[in-house]
């Protein structure tokens, strides 16, 4: 990512104090109102968006205050009594919550560890293909699973893993097992099922951005490397990967900041009474506490705690990757 010329120039010129800042408040408001009236037609296009954001984004953010209240069905948001940090204190001693945290982290780190690298490798492999038609075919097929919803894929996984399903059939035919079993009912394997099904669904889709970046690499780099006697792997290592550093970092930041918010749809469809202890993630726990048990304040407190940790993760990841990118923040 190049620095935009605009930000480069604004950095060299000291920021001028806007003239309006010196004027008295009353005059500034008056000016704003006259301008607003003059621009009424164009303002009328933006206004619905502002109203929408206030209602659907900012009121729920204000609604987070119920995490510090004791909200019951008879109360409204403003009448519920304040309880300070009580809800957060209960969270710390709630073992179901900690189970959910461990599962969320376990699944997320598996997804991060395995799932982050695969699209990069896959993109390089597709990039290295020189046959136009096969390349297009591979791309078309690899994007396809992304368009299936988690409900559809969950339904598919349940049939694939059933005792008479594809998975057991394949293992039986290959002689790897002697008796079919349903691994979706095996709690110990759930983390891997969640991780691998996510990779199956999203790996191909994840290549699009990388392929777009690679298409912009100057081909003369490769010619020069070939003349110097660099093999294909060497070219990938010394040309392709360094050119993707910025976008990989950006992707890493976004993935890390989303670590705690792992897929609710996936959990809801794949979780069953047998694998619950290993399948419950924070989001599904919030759903269960809030929506099915009606403990709104407690569920909001859990959600708020997770959001705060996510923001901290985002900032940390940004710091680490900016070190890798010569101290330039990629955000």
């Amino acid at each position: 990512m190049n620095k935009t010329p605009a930000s480069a120039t604004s950095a060299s010129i000291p920021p001028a104090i806007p003239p309006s800042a010196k004027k008295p408040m009353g005059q500034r408001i008056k000016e704003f109102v006259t301008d607003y009236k003059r621009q009424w037609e164009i303002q009328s296009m933006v206004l619905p968006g502002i109203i929408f954001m206030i209602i659907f984004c900012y009121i729920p953010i204000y609604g987070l205050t119920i995490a510090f209240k004791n909200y019951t069905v008879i109360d409204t948001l403003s009448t519920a009594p304040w309880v300070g940090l009580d809800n957060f204190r209960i969270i710390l001693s709630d073992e179901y919550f900690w189970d959910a945290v461990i599962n969320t982290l376990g699944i997320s780190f598996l997804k991060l560890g395995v799932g982050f690298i695969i699209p990069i490798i896959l993109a390089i492999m597709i990039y290295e293909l020189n046959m136009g038609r096969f390349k297009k075919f591979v791309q078309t097929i690899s994007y396809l699973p992304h368009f299936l919803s988690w409900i559809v894929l969950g339904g598919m996984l349940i049939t694939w893993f059933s005792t008479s399903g594809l998975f057991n059939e394949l293992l039986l035919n290959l002689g790897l097992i002697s008796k079919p079993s349903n691994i979706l009912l095996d709690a110990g394997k759930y983390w891997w099922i969640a991780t691998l099904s996510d990779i199956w669904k999203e790996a191909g889709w994840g290549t699009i951005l990388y392929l777009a970046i690679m298409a912009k690499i100057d081909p003369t780099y490769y010619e020069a490397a070939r003349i110097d006697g660099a093999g294909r792997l060497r070219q990938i290592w010394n040309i392709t990967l360094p050119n993707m550093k910025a976008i990989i970092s950006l992707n890493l930041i976004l993935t890390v900041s989303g670590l705690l918010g792992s897929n609710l749809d996936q959990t809801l469809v794949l979780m069953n009474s047998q694998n619950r202890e290993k399948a419950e993630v924070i989001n599904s726990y919030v759903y269960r506490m809030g929506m099915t048990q009606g403990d709104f304040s407690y569920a909001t407190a859990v959600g708020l705690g997770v959001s705060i940790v996510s923001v901290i993760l985002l900032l940390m990841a940004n710091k680490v990757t900016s070190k890798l990118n010569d101290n330039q923040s990629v955000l």
Partner: protein
Amino acid sequence: MNQKVIREDLDSRIFDAVNKVLLVCFMVIILVPLWNVIISSLSSGRALAEGGFIFWSKEFSLENYRAVFNDSTIGQSFVVSVAKTFIGVITHVFFCAMIGYGLSKRYIRGRKLYVAMGVITMFFSGGMIPTYLLIKSLGLLNSFWVYIIPALFSYYDVVILMNFFRNVPDSLEESAKIDGAGDWHIFLKIFIPLSMPAMATIALFNGVGQWNDFMTTKLYITDQALYPLQMKLYEIIVQSQTQSMQNIGGSVVIETTTKGVQLATIVITTLPIVAMYPILQRYFISGMMLGAVKE
């Protein structure tokens, strides 16, 4: 020197061969399970119970599809899915385009504040429970409009459209203004027709999202008449899972029928997306670039 070139050429060929073989394996991993779902849905209940096939069904039968179409609630869910996707996409694209057009004008008063408000929505939200309480107090629970109204706006899409509108030459707007056209007229008659590629991209992404969305229903809808296909399928899945766990070794007939219905519903739920896929594909690559790669 000559020998070196030959060796490099050989290395390169080996690389290509290995690369191709691995990618073919990757294709197999994606396609075989999908193919298996399709042929399984076209198998009789008895063949499904026995299992033992991967590529070709043992007993071809349409009984699963017949069972699905006999269930009138599935037809109704299909209508709900189509309606919410169609209405949702059109209103979403128009709403975002309108705001994006306004914000693309640098002279607009209060622009900095509006943009700041938008950016904050990308990183912070109230989360599940406060949003639920809001939807409840707005009276949107068990209303078709809960699919449409909260989904009207996305700041990501506004930014994409805003950047697209900026690339339209200013002179077009200026000459229209000289001819006495107002902002709305310019937006509707000049900018919208010129921005069809960007709008189509957003429409397609949003359409896939609407078609696949199931959390909205799960959170806000209890009225079965408003269930889209995804929610209907979810119910069938949950139902069949509890049944298969209760009847381990028990009633095989029920289990295989629900399995067949489940498979047929999966295929029906996915078909519209797969049918749209060739059209989708043309747009989504440029759409990804539009959204993600700036400068």
